[in-house]
Each structure stands twice: as structure tokens, then as C-alpha cells.
């Protein structure tokens, strides 16, 4: 009825290839952006920012990064936790070595450092693929965590091996440290998330993205039509590493404030982000958001429902949470193996025809 292309005339190539070709979608997108930038910061409090928004935004960036590698380029990676650790430690070293530079640039540089590391560990992808590549990236995961635990230089030789984010501000407003107002950390991460989503979206529908998808679908055929697998695979690793590094840096500096590499960036983190990508939908930017929302918000919601709402014992609630989330993952994947993004796509198709499906 209101959700359709009819009457929305595209008169230029740009208009024709825009991300949201349907007017309703476009306005919804603008409304979400306005709400996120202009409404949420005024109503947000410490609980919302630390338990809901920061993890959601930061995991979304990580999922976008991994989605580029796994979903678009077809290179399986189990090293996300390790690469996030690279971002976190790079930002820590930069923050402590150059305190006069804005944290904004430190986060971006941390992404750059991760990008380089990610390319190094991506080199084996030129020879091996599938499960074998997954094992090679798994090695990266364990090696990086071991490295940051072992070499004192990375944590400035602190007694406990923990890294703690010093207080840094942007435009005079504290971003890291405990004294920051909730909206500043939120907005800071939101800027990175929105930028990451826009960049990723435009990369994936441009030439780079088409090359990645060609490699994903059939690497030999892609090579025959002129895609350089070396360049395509390594750029995927580089871009993916950049986003994952940024998310790791934000995870450490803005969200947690202090991390311990084995606990915060262990193999569990790699799987968590991979699950986000798979549940959300491989090869979809929206899917990255949906997957992050599913795995970050659902446990919080369940906990608040069961413990806060129904007053059940916390241990029972924690166990039930595992069961419910696990069951939902299985149900979702059986019902729609292409993830939440595909569900969304189907829903949109139906909406287009509604209320006259024939």
C-alpha cells in the first residue's frame, strides 16, 4: 500500500542505484538516524549505554568487518577475537604514547594496524580455503592472545597484565574513563558504527565488493574473468581487519575501559562474532546489525524479564538464558538458513504486495 516503488520515479543513475530504493525505507532510515543522533543521546542513562547500546554498536562494527571477509569474500575466519585484541592493544599503545593526539585518530590508526596484521594472517588464504583457512586463522587467534599475554611491552609492563584506558576527550568532552557522560561514549561509537556501515555498504556494491563476491562464488571462474585473487582476498582481509580493529579499540577504550586479553578477546569472542554474522545473514550489512542485536540484546532482555520481571533465581535465569538463546538460534536457522537478513528481505517482498498479493 504505502510500501512500494510505484509513483517514486527515478530520473538519474544515482537515484536508481541508491541503497533504499523504496521511499518508505528511505524515510525510515532517515528517521532512525535522526532518532539515534538527536533523540537517544538526550534520554540515555548509564545502564542503557553500558548494557545495551555500546555493546550493540561495537559488536555491529565487528560483525560488519567479519561479514566482509566471510559473507562477501567467502574466507572463513576464526581469528576475530585476536584481531579485536590487536585493535585494543594498538589503541592502548597509541593512547599512552601520544596523549596529545585525539582519541578519534587513535581509534582509526588502531584499525589501520589491525588491517596490516590481518593481511599478514590472510596470506595463507592464497593457498588454502574453507576449513583449512579456518584453522590457519584459529592459529592467529591463539598466537595473538599469547603474544599480548607474554610480551610486557604491549601492556606497558603493568603488574597484572591488564590494560586500562586513560581518560581522553574529544572537543573537551570525556569519552573514555569512568567520568564520561553516557551520551558522549554513545555518540562516539555511533559515529564509528554509522561510518562503518556506510563505507561497507558502498564498498560491497562497488567494484571491490563485486570482486570479493566473484571470489566467494567461484575463485577459478573469477580468476578467468580477470579478478586478481591475491588483490581481492588481501583487500578483503585488510578492510575486514580495519573494521574489526576499530571495534576492538572501541570495545577496550570506550566500553570496558580495562581488559585482560585472554578473558576479553578469547576464542569465545571469535565464535560470538561469527555467530552474529551467520545468524544475521552472510553478505548483508543489515544482517550484521540484526545478528549483533540478536546476540547482545536478547540475553539482556531475557535476564531482565526472568530476574527483574518474574523474580526468578539468578542461576536458574542464567541457565535458561543459554537454553532459550540456543534454541532460538537453531529455530531461526532451520526456519531461514540465510539468517535474519533473509527474513527481512522476504518480509519486504510481502509488504510490497500487501494488501493485494495477487
Amino acid at each position, binding site marked *: 500500500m504505502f510500501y512500494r516503488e510505484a509513483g517514486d520515479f527515478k530520473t538519474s543513475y544515482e537515484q536508481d542505484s541508491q541503497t533504499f530504493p523504496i521511499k518508505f525505507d528511505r524515510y*525510515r532510515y532517515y528517521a*532512525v538516524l535522526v*532518532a539515534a543522533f538527536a533523540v537517544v543521546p538526550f534520554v540515555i542513562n*548509564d*545502564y*542503557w549505554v*553500558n*548494557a*545495551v547500546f555500546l*555493546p*550493540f554498536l561495537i559488536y555491529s562494527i565487528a560483525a560488519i568487518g567479519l561479514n566482509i571477509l566471510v559473507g562477501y569474500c567467502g574466507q572463513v575466519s576464526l581469528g576475530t577475537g585476536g584481531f579485536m585484541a590487536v585493535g585494543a592493544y594498538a589503541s592502548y599503545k597509541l593512547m599512552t604514547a601520544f596523549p596529545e593526539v585525539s582519541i578519534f585518530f587513535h581509534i582509526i590508526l588502531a584499525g589501520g594496524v589491525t588491517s596490516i596484521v590481518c593481511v599478514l594472517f590472510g596470506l595463507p588464504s592464497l593457498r588454502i580455503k574453507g576449513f583449512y583457512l579456518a584453522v590457519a586463522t584459529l592459529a592467529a587467534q591463539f598466537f595473538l592472545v599469547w603474544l599480548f*599475554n607474554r610480551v610486557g611491552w604491549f601492556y606497558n609492563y*603493568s*603488574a*597484572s*597484565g*591488564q590494560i*586500562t584506558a*586513560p*581518560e581522553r576527550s574529544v572537543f573537551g568532552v570525556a569519552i573514555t*574513563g*569512568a*567520568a564520561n557522560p553516557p551520551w558522549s561514549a554513545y555518540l562516539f561509537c555511533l559515529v564509528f558504527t554509522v561510518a562503518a556501515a556506510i563505507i561497507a555498504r558502498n564498498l560491497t556494491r562497488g567494484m571491490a565488493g563485486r570482486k570479493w563476491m566473484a571470489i566467494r562464488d567461484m575463485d577459478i571462474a573469477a580468476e578467468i574473468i580477470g579478478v586478481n585473487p591475491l588483490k581481492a582476498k588481501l583487500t578483503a582481509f585488510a578492510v575486514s581487519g580495519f573494521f574489526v580493529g576499530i571495534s576492538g579499540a572501541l570495545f577496550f577504550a570506550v*566500553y*570496558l*575501559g*580495562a*581488559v*585482560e586479553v*585472554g*578473558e*576479553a578477546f*578469547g576464542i569465545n569472542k571469535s565464535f560470538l562474532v561469527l555467530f552474529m554474522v551467520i545468524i544475521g545473514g552472510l553478505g548483508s550489512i543489515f544482517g550484521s*546489525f*540484526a545478528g549483533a*542485536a540478536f546476540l547482545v*540484546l*536478547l540475553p*539482556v*532482555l531475557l*535476564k*531482565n*524479564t526472568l*530476574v*527483574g*520481571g518474574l523474580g526468578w*533465581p*539468578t*542461576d536458574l*535465569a*542464567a*541457565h535458561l538464558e543459554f537454553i532459550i538463546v540456543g534454541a532460538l538460534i537453531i529455530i531461526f536457522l532451520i526456519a531461514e538458513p540465510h539468517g535474519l537478513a533473509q527474513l527481512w528481505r522476504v518480509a519486504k517482498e510481502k509488504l510490497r504486495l500487501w494488501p493485494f498479493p495477487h
Partner: protein
Amino acid sequence: MKQRLMTALAAAMLVASPALAELTIVDTSYRTGPYGANGIPFSDGYQDYFTLLNERDGGIGGEKINLVECETGYNTEKGVECYEATKAAGNGALIYQPLSTGITYQLIPKVSADGIPLHTMGYGRTSAKNGEVFKWVFNYPANYWDGASHAITHILDLNGGDINGKKISLVYHNSAYGKEPIRTLEELSKKHGFELILLPVDHPGQEQKSQWLQIRRDRPDYVLMWGWGVMNQVAIQEAVNIRFPMENFIGIWWSGSENDVKPAGDAANGYKALTFHNLGDEYPLYDDMRKYVVDAGKAAGAGDQVGSVLYNRGMYAAMLAAEAIKTAQEMHGVTAINAAQMRDGMENLEMTEAKMTALGLPNFGPEFKVTCQNHGGNGFGAVSQWDAAAGEFKLITDYFQSDQEIISALVAEDSAAFAAESGITPGC
């Protein structure tokens, strides 16, 4: 996006908790995950003591205690979520006892900004002992560095004061927690001339074959352990497997509960662990505990942990919190204290033998006095030994003091570094 907002809205409606008691205590427990076996008894003891006060005395100073539990799973992200969710519960949380060094590191800046005291009893950041820098953090009655020194002092006593040339291995959880004692042990090894061998074990610690193989090769005279959760059981079992003499194997207080030694059976007999409070359940307080809490069906958890080592420790933590509340109530002349007044109460807390006897816990812990400069007590601890036949840990020494000369220098150094890093001007 829409979905996210809907979820968020639904969560918002459920966050608000209606509890409106006067004194809010948060128990950030972990009853699930690889550390659950150790988290349960501690949390049970912590909660049962407050339940006892509510049931028997009607709270503290006439104010009922509202106990809020939040499950962290020993996970830092969930710990942060718990902290944010509970800090405003009731009239505001009075004290946090996270029982996790990782979560402690997260919370130190947060509690300092929010003004809520943090008590990390025998764990956490050791240099928080320096109250001039860590205004809101307390770690009395003893800390890891005290523990490291206690172990070495005990070894010195066994060897007539000379351990020059001896080999001591440290098996530790490869995390902030396990790394804490290393610096102290290095200093002590310089002072006493023993050789220190470091053997890290990665989380969660189920795989330790290579570490114990190395112990078998190195043949150290003593093995120290900084473990938690399943790591303890595995380490003790591995020590049994290589026939390491158990009386030369000393664990920190977090590696000395019944859960840790029982899987190894009789072979674990003689294993030693440090402690900073007394063991067993033969105290007058436990009669009340049984009468008012356990038999009344009000015990936390399954109610089967009474008198175990970690239960006693949780109860000791609750007792110290309750005594700090009493101190604060006396100081400020109000019964419904707030978090800032709670901090004053903790800073002026003095535990004496007379006080503990009056509570029904004679000789339960060391005597200590907290001051503005010293948030860590006087560093007294004792050594306990596992008696497999009797199925209990028994104290084999009196409380003795750690090497204050070395520890105070390290505390001053580390807290000065923290103060410089985070721009704090030390002072009282």
C-alpha cells in the same frame, strides 16, 4: 533497526525494580560457568549472613537489608551490566564485592566516579591498599602480595629460615589474578635467594599436562598455586599423578576449598592452602544460622554449603560489610546510611577479638584496623592443611604477618604509577 527499538523498549519496561528497602547490598555472584563451583558457596555465605541479620535482629540498626543478586558468570561484560543495573537499586547500592579480579579492574574507575565503595577481600588490585590513591576501594584484611609473602614465610619456617638455592615453582592462572603475586615473589626471591619458576595456565585451566611435566623435570622443592575454579582441581589431580609431595604444595586462599581437593580423593591429603579467616562450623553464630536461616528454609542456593571454606569466606565478607555499616551508623548518627557514609564506615572499621566474640565468631579472623592511608589491613594470614580422612581443612599455624617491608614498597610504587596514569593527587 525497528526490531532493536522494540527490544529496547521491552527491556526498558522490565528494568525498573520495585524494591524499596533501606540498606541495599548487591551480591554479584556467579553460580554458572567454569567458576560456578567456587562462586556458589561464597555467594551462599554472603547472602545467608544478611538473611540472618534480617531474621534475627531485624536488619542492622533497625534497617532491613535488601539483597540484590546479579549473575556475572565471572564475565567482565556481564559484570559491567550487573553493576550498571544494580547501582541505583533501592536507595543506591552500598557496597560491591565482585569476587573477580577482572571485574574489579573494570569497576575501580566506575565506583570512583559514582562514589560507591568496592570491597575486594583478598583479591583485586593489590595496590588499592593505598587509600590515598584508591579512595573508594578496600582490600582488607589481606591481599595477594601478603599471600605470596605468607607462603614464603611458611616455607622459611619449615626450613629453619634458610631457603637459599631452593627451587619454587608458581603455577598460576594466566590472567590479572594469577599474575599479581609475581612481582612480590621476584622481590622475595632476591631477598631470600630462592629460584622462582613461572608456569602460566590458560583459562579455564583444564589442560595442565605440560606444566606438570615441567614440574616433574625441574623437581622444585615447593609449588605455589594461584588458581581458581576448575584449574584448582586439575592442578591437585596432576600433582597427585606425578606424586608430588602434597605438603610441599601450597595454594593461595582461592585454591583451598573442599571442591578443589575432594576430586583427588585421599591422595590430596596434606595439601596446604593459605587463609585469612578461620575454618569449620563450630562457632556460636552457626547455631543461629541453622536456626534462623537454614532450618527455616531461607538459605540461599541449596543450603548445603554451611561451614565450607568458601561459605565461611563469603560470610566473613558479609560480616565485615555489616560491621562497616554499624560503624557508619554510629559515626553519622543515622541508620539509613548512603554509599558515602558507608565508605567512612569502612575506612574506620576496626575488627577486634572482643567484637568477633560478641558476634559469635571468636578467633574467626585476624584483628585489623583500617585507616585512610591503609585500606588493606595489616596483612595477617595463616596456613591450613587438608585432612582427607576428616574431610576438612585445618589451621596449622597462627595468623602471622607478611613481609611488610617489601610489600609496602611495592604498593607505594604501583599506586603511584596508577595515580600518575589517571591524574589522581594522592591525599587523605
